[in-house]
């Protein structure tokens, strides 16, 4: 009895289309964000995250339209990230139907932006996304989709962001992303123990045991995955059943 752990499929969106390979046999148009979001809603995803990977100024309105269309038909929480720089960006996305906004590079550039956003919209909708890479005995955060080193220690940064007003941390291991070797559990545990806000583990999921490990060994509150769900390797339902069998409370 209590709060469940969450499974969050993550979709990369560019110019109003889901990109980076999503292949469902159940869906005719595998690039339509509304169809894909509806599918994930129907199979029991606890939330859906959209990452706007183009995020040029021309595409800002496209992502708003996409969020609006999805929010009209999908009645579970939506997180949107990618290129969020101003309070106006956040306001527009929330008005379009997003529930949470992920901020990454803009937080590094102006840490006080996270504080202003949390103060204005409430910390519950401000997610700080952290992309981290291992450096000897610690982890360093990177911005701009993992291309730019910052010299900032990930653990200290997570603490600072939570104090600033982030309501949740989306923690991605750049070392593990795309490897299918499982989450960086040491990184996950270090950050979950350092902050009192929920932490979403991301990067590296290759099988269902990895998801359970993220919760049970990493201490994460939610797990985010893309390819294992997009290509039909596992369904969200099978993942939830597996995790429940492992002793994790899930919404089945």
């Amino acid at each position: 009895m209590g709060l469940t752990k969450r499974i969050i499929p993550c979709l990369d969106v560019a110019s109003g289309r889901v990109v980076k390979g999503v292949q469902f046999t159940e869906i005719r148009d595998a690039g339509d964000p509304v169809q894909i979001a509806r599918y994930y809603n129907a199979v029991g995803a606890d939330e859906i995250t959209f990452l706007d990977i183009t995020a040029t100024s021309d595409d800002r309105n496209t992502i708003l339209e996409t969020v609006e269309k999805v929010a009209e038909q999908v009645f579970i929480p939506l997180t949107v990230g990618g290129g969020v720089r101003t309070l106006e960006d956040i306001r527009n996305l929330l008005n379009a139907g997003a529930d949470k906004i992920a901020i990454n590079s803009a937080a590094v550039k102006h840490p006080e932006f996270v504080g202003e956003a949390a103060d204005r919209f409430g910390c519950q909708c401000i997610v700080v996304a952290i992309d981290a890479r291992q450096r000897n005995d610690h982890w360093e955060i990177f911005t701009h989709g993992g291309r730019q080193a910052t010299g900032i220690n990930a653990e200290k940064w997570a603490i600072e962001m939570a104090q600033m007003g982030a309501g949740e941390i989306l923690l991605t291991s750049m070392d593990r992303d795309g490897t299918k070797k499982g989450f960086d559990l040491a990184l996950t545990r270090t950050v979950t123990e350092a902050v009192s806000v929920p932490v979403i583990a991301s990067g590296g999921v290759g099988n269902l045991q990895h998801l359970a490990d993220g919760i049970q060994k990493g201490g994460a509150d939610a797990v985010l995955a893309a390819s294992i769900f997009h290509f039909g390797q596992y369904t969200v339902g099978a993942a939830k059943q597996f995790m429940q069998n492992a002793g994790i409370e899930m919404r089945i």
Partner: protein
Amino acid sequence: MQKIVVLDYGMGNLHSVTGALRKVAPGDQVVQAKTPEEVEGADRLVVPGVGAIRDCMEGFASQGFVPVLKQAVKAGLPVLGICVGMQIMMRHSEENNGVDGLGLFPQALKLLHCPFTPAGTRLKVPHMGWNQVTQQDNHPLWANIDDNSRFYFVHSYYVPAENNRWISGQTKYSVTLAAAMAEKNIFATQFHPEKSANDGLQLLQNFVNWNGHY
């Protein structure tokens, strides 16, 4: 055809609430109102709300909605408050160094703390995710919803369930908190029915069908 009005005072997630109401009430008129004039002729009111309570209260008041809501409550219109929409109906909140609410319920909101559980893990704040709601009465808004169903929560302040005769549903998260409160024609939820998949849509469907009597 009835007119269902969602009060728009600049505080987020209107689109989801409106979309969910349109889904469950396809034959009705669902409108977002920014002014008291646009509320005129309403058959029922929805007060959503996302964000910090000070800005929510200020936005609500500056748009002239305080007398509108009080009038609707008096007139017996079914009213649904959601999340911060429920919170502003309370007497007071600890948030933002203390903010007075509308006082439709005499309760005060407290900050959730994050104690360590017996297992040694820390409970996270905000309370974010799917938690079980134990129904405390047979309110019409619980029709066709199983007891202990899961709804989506995201909040850091809560109304205690203890000494709360308005409680309609409660949830445990280190403390026992008010998940839903009811008083005559007002029903208010701390969780987001518009984000709670099928059970949430069922609750909204029940609200749309409710005559406001309880």
